[in-house]
Structure formats: structure tokens, C-alpha cells
């Protein structure tokens, strides 16, 4: 069943000797009892059900695939309680520091004055928003929803791969995958104590209400979507529905007397908290991109006056930029006076000539990413790339080195996964969703993405990755 030729990456289910790890034993036992045909039936059932529910994903630049299913794998990623405690503490610590950092950057720049982060890294960064300078946001919270990508490598140690602090998506899959597993295999959940995640929308609503403008006692929350043709539309609609709030588009909103309103059948209704799922650039055509039809003219001025809260705040991209990522451990030490509980992946900055020359000499073994890129586009995975691909990428890199960082190719941990030929290990990552409201909290779980192609390390759904349910075990 297991491929033994290549050096083994860390497998979440089996140890190096092929024995089932303790936290997977109850599941392995159950799996063994299942007739293979039953699993085939359940897989078909899951597919059908996702289609009926309409949990589909639009892929850009792909006419035929305008509504595609993200493959769902039936073998869950299981995380033992002790590992989760570490992750939870590390993630909360990290997001606290990131919130402090963004607040600092848009106020007194202490971290720059202390010489920990060079000023050009902050102020020359295209993600820095001068409009945010000096603006007070409730609770000093900026990244109300953070998706922190965590991987396991080597002997099983955790690394933070990247911080997503703008409009991280995927949480609906965390919830729907759980619902699907419970629907398909209810008996599993009576055998194994899995921490629930279904209360996420409540946590989210609670966090969003907690940061409403001070003078509003029954704050009105709305989810702002670019519309039904956006790839994550399902998620926007899903979250709005689960929270019981309106799902709005830019055309549904308008600004009058420095107040944000939505157009309803009973006339204008004031909006206090806007959970936006569109990028900064499109929020307000008067302030940012003037050709944007997705946003609301005048929104920024209402925001600056403190009469509406935008979540996530404008300008958080500065902190999740891949060139800022390198400084996060220092931020934790600087703002919290603590040692980071979760490590960063080592990193080379191509903007530095010495580091660039190392990267150019080792392209075949490194992962090179665009500093501002997202979604697995514009990256090179050296070991998996052809000679021609590497040479093409080298040209781009030399032309604009500051646009790239490089990391060692981590042997991401694997989880057994259903593939054409049966069950085989496939690489996974994990995106827990960290909420910043009254406090920094997170549900015990996350979105587990799996690279379905053998050996592939790219788990993004836009690149053909799949998902698994993630189980955090309770003690």
C-alpha cells in the first residue's frame, strides 16, 4: 500500500516503521472493517451531494470548468490533542503579534525606530496604505479573520508557511467537509471524540459584533461579495446565511452623510460592520481603483470617520506579504516579549544580492514565490520543474529579484488518500482560521488541503488540489 522507494516524508497516520500512530488507531480499525465497495459508494455519494448543495469552485481562465467540485477525500487528517494545544497557542501568539504590528505601522512605527524592520520594507511596500495612518480601529484589531497556513515537515515539526491576512477563504470547506463526514459516517463520530467546528459562524459573528463602532448597540453586520461569478461566492453566501446577515454587493450599498447604508425593500438601512470579501483596491473607487464597480464610492471616508468597521481592516496586506513574513518571529519577540512557539520556514530574500546568488545556484531544489502572489500562481517548485521551466523562471527572477523569496523544498507531511490506484500518501497542509474580536480565538480544526498528484507539493484548489476533513481529537 505504501510507496517505499523515495525517502519517506513524515506521514500523519503511519510511523517510519509502517505502524499506525496511536491517534489514528481507532480510525484505522474502523477503516479495516469497511468493505471496499462501501467506500466507493460513499465517495460517489459525497460527490453527488456536494453538487446538489452547490459547493463548487470557479477556476479563472477555464471556460469549461466554470463550476467545478473540489475533490474531497474521505480519509481525515487527524491531529492529536497535544499537537493542537501547541498549534493553538502558537497561532494565537502569532496573530496577536501581527495585529500589534499593523497597529504600530499605522501609528508610531516603534518597530522601525527600534531597527528591527527596515523602513523601506514597510513604507515602500505596495501593500502599505497611507490612508490608514493614524486611523483608530476598535480594539486595535486589524486582521479579524486570519488564515495561517501550517505545514509539518522533517520529523514532524510544524512550520508556518504563510499568513493570509487579507481575505482568506476556504472556511466553508472546513464546515462542509465536517458535515459531509458526519452524514456519510455517523458511526465514526460516536467512536472517536472529534472537537466540533460547526460553531465557527457564531464565533465569527461574535468577533465582528465585538469590533463594531462604539456607539452602536445592535450593530448591523453585512458580508460584501464581488458577486456570484467570484470563485468563492459559495462561501460568501454560506457565511452570510449561517450568520443570519445580509450578503451585499457594492451596488446594494451607498454612502450618505458619512454613513454607510444598504438599499432594502423598506428603504435605507445603516451598516455598522462590513465583512468584506473583496480586496482593498476595489473597496472604494474614489480612494483606490477608480474603475472598480465592486466597491462603494465614499466608503473610505466613512471608515476613516470611525462610522463603519471594515473587516479585515484596510492595509493588512502589508503584514502577510511574503517579504514581511521573515520578520514575524521578531515581531513576536518585540511586541509580546515571548519566544515564537511556531517556527517560520527558513527563507532567502532575492532582493539581497548574496542571497539571490545562492537561490540562482540552487533553483532546482528550492521553492521560489512571488512576494505578493497568492493562490499558488507564479511560483516555482524546483524539484518538480523541468529544465525549461527553471530557465524561464530564472529569467523572470533576474529581471526583478525583489519580487521573489525562496524557501527550501520542505518534505510536507503526508496523509493516506484515495487515488486511482487505491490508497497512497499525499502531501497536505493545514489552514486554521484565527479570529480577532474581543480576543484572539480559533475553532479546533481548519481546512486540510491535499495535493492529489503524486509527489506534488502544491495544494491550492486553483491548482487541482483536494481537501480533507480535519479532526482535532479531544482528550
Amino acid at each position, binding site marked *: 500500500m505504501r510507496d517505499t522507494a523515495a525517502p519517506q516524508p513524515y506521514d500523519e497516520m503511519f510511523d517510519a516503521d509502517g505502524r499506525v500512530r496511536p491517534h489514528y488507531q481507532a480510525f484505522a480499525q474502523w477503516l479495516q472493517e469497511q468493505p471496499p465497495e462501501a467506500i466507493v459508494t460513499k465517495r460517489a455519494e459525497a460527490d453527488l451531494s456536494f453538487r446538489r448543495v452547490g459547493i463548487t469552485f470557479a477556476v479563472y481562465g477555464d471556460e469549461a470548468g466554470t463550476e467545478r467540485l473540489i475533490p474531497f477525500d474521505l480519509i481525515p487528517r487527524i491531529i492529536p490533542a497535544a499537537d493542537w494545544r501547541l498549534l493553538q497557542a502558537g497561532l494565537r501568539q502569532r496573530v496577536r503579534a501581527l495585529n500589534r504590528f499593523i497597529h504600530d505601522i499605522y501609528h508610531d512605527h516603534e518597530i522601525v525606530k527600534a531597527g528591527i524592520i527596515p523602513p523601506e520594507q514597510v513604507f515602500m511596500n505596495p501593500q502599505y496604505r497611507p490612508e490608514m495612518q493614524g486611523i483608530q480601529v476598535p480594539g486595535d484589531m486589524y486582521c479579524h479573520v486570519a488564515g495561517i497556513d501550517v505545514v509539518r515537515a522533517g520529523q514532524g515539526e510544524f512550520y508556518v508557511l504563510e499568513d493570509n491576512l487579507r481575505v482568506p477563504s476556504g472556511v466553508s470547506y472546513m464546515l462542509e467537509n465536517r458535515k459531509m463526514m458526519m452524514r456519510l459516517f455517523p458511526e465514526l463520530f460516536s467512536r472517536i471524540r472529534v472537537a466540533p467546528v460547526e460553531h465557527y459562524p457564531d464565533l465569527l459573528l461574535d468577533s465582528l459584533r465585538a469590533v463594531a463602532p462604539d456607539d452602536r448597540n445592535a450593530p448591523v453586520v453585512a458580508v460584501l461579495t464581488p458577486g*456570484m461569478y467570484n470563485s468563492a*461566492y459559495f462561501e460568501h453566501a454560506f457565511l452570510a446565511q449561517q450568520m443570519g446577515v445580509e450578503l451585499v454587493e457594492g451596488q446594494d450599498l451607498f454612502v450618505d452623510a458619512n454613513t454607510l447604508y444598504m438599499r432594502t*425593500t423598506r428603504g435605507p438601512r445603516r451598516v455598522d460592520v462590513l465583512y468584506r470579501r473583496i480586496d482593498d483596491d476595489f473597496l472604494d473607487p474614489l480612494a483606490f481603483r477608480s474603475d472598480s464597480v465592486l466597491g462603494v464610492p465614499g466608503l473610505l471616508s466613512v471608515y476613516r470617520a470611525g462610522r463603519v468597521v471594515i473587516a479585515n481592516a484596510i492595509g493588512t496586506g502589508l503584514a502577510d506579504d511574503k517579504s514581511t513574513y521573515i520578520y514575524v518571529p521578531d515581531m513576536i519577540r518585540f511586541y509580546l516579549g515571548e519566544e515564537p512557539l511556531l517556527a517560520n520556514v527558513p527563507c532567502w530574500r532575492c532582493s539581497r544580492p548574496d542571497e539571490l546568488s545562492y537561490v540562482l545556484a540552487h533553483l532546482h531544489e528550492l521553492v521560489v514565490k512571488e512576494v505578493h502572489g497568492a493562490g499558488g500562481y507564479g511560483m516555482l517548485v524546483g524539484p518538480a520543474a523541468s529544465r525549461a521551466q527553471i530557465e524561464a523562471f530564472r529569467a523572470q527572477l533576474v529581471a526583478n529579484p525583489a519580487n521573489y523569496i525562496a524557501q527550501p523544498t520542505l518534505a510536507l507531511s503526508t496523509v493516506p488518500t484515495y487515488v486511482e490506484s487505491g490508497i497512497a500518501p499525499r502531501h497536505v497542509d493545514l489552514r486554521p482560521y484565527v479570529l480577532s474580536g474581543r480576543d484572539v480565538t480559533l475553532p479546533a480544526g481548519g481546512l486540510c488541503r491535499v495535493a492529489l498528484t503524486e509527489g506534488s507539493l502544491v495544494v491550492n484548489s486553483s491548482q487541482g488540489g483536494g481537501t480533507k476533513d480535519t479532526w482535532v481529537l479531544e482528550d
Partner: protein
Amino acid sequence: MLSRTADSLFWMSRYIERAENTARMLDVTFQVSLLPQSPRLRSQGWHSVLAISELRQQFDASHDTLTGRDVIEFMTRDADNPASIYACLRAAREAARAVRGSLTTEVWETCNTTWLELQRRLPGLALHADPRDFFEWVKFRSHLSRGVVAGTMLRDETSSFLALGAHLERADNTARLLDVAFVEATDESDGEAGDASLAFYRWSALLHSVSGFETYRKVYRDVLTPSRVVELMVFNPAMPRSLRCAVDDVIRSLEDVATERSLETLRLARSLRAYLDAGSVQGLFDRGLHDFLTVFLDRVAELGNRISRDFLVPLSD
């Protein structure tokens, strides 16, 4: 509720209702076409289908012949015809997708499943061997959709806008159906008209198309007469697909969502009911049913425009 949401709800149920009524209309025409009759009469039924929907021009632009087969094809699975069942169900599903957050999971899944199932069925469908099987399916999905709305949705504005769309569409569609059926029946002046059994089948098919055949028997306990068929379909407030009943339902939904701005619209709807109340079967026949229905259809269209202006696309901020 967001105006855009109300707009999508309104149109979602209009499209579902329209798909159902198109299926009903095709069904009755198909049945009548099976009766022994002259080729001219037989093809007249299919002409009427296009006339009802005001689609003759569009049909002619893409067709050289006009047979039952052509019309069924055009009205069921022609994706380029915005009034085809396919296009209606696609539009309904698009609208539902735009507001799925306002629908219960069951309502959304019913609509989405209809669409998925339609795509699976239509391409290989042996449509012409037994079209009624497909029409039944469309009607059944519409029943299901209505039922799941009634059984799961909160009785708030959301249900009201859904109901408003469906009933306004029904008022329109029933009036058109009646208009065409009647024009045809009275046009049978070329000898075949005297054929009592043919007339009987025409009227009974019309009743069947609004699920009214048994109702007729129950209400009148008598043979089919044109004036009673008209009475049942225009004036009877208890007959779910009659004009009177559809207008009552429109008024009820409008009352539920009324705002200051919509008072004039509500007044207009009530005056439409008064227009029906003031009429009588004899009066209709004296004046001409077609004239009466033309006025009715104009008023319904005007109501649709006003609803749009009052709730769905508010002009002022």
C-alpha cells in the same frame, strides 16, 4: 431585505412558474393535436403556442417549418429561446444562486437539483416519443418547489416576494392560455366546429392544463359548457389557477410587503380585482373575451413594472 435580494426572489419564482405553465400549455396542445381533425386545425394549435408567448417572430427567424415537433423543441430545450423551459429553469437557478443565503437549504437544493437533473435529462431525452412524461416532470418539480417553500421558509418578506412573483406570473399565463384557447374554439367556423366531441376535448384539455377538470365536475356536476369553463377560470376565487384567485394572491403578498411607496401599486391591484368582480360571464361574451383579457394582461404588466419600481430597483437613495 435588500432590494436586489427581493428582485432575485421575485424572478426566481416567476421563472419557475413560467416553466410550469409552458409545460402545461405544451401538454394541452399536444393532447389536442392527437384528436382527429384537419391538418389546418392541428397546426393551428402550435401556432397558438407561439402566439401566446409572443414568440412567433423569433421562432420564424430560426425555423423554416412549423410543426408540433419544432415548437416542442423550441419551447423546451432551445437554449437561445429565453422563454424555453430550459432557459426559464436556468434563469430560476441563477436567481436562486444569487440569493441562496436567503433561502433554506431545502429550497436551494430543490432548485439546484432541478437544474442539474434537467441538464442530465434533456440532451438524450426521447422528447417526441412521449413529451408528456417530461411535462409532468417539470410540473412535478414546480410543485415540489412550491411545497418546500411553504414547508420550510419563514413567513416573512422572503416568502412574500416569492409568492408575489409566482402569482403575478400565473395571472399572466392563465390569461394568455384562456385567450388563445378561446380564439381557437370560436374560430372553428369551417364545418368542424359543429363537431361536438372535438369541442368537448378542446375544453377538457384546457381544463386539464390548469388542473381544473375534476374541479369543474365537482363545482358544476354538469356537462362542459364554454361559459362555465370561462367562469371557473376567470371568476372562481377558490380555483387556484383562476385569474381571480391569482389576483387575490398578488394582493395578499402586496399587503404583506406594503410600504408607503407601494400604496398606489396596492390600489392598482385591488382595482384589478374590482374589474374582475364587476364582470360576468355573459358580459364577457357580449363584449368579447379577447378584449377583456387584453385589458387584464395590460394591467398585470403594469403591476409588474410598479412592483419593480417600488421594491426591487428603488430609484432614490
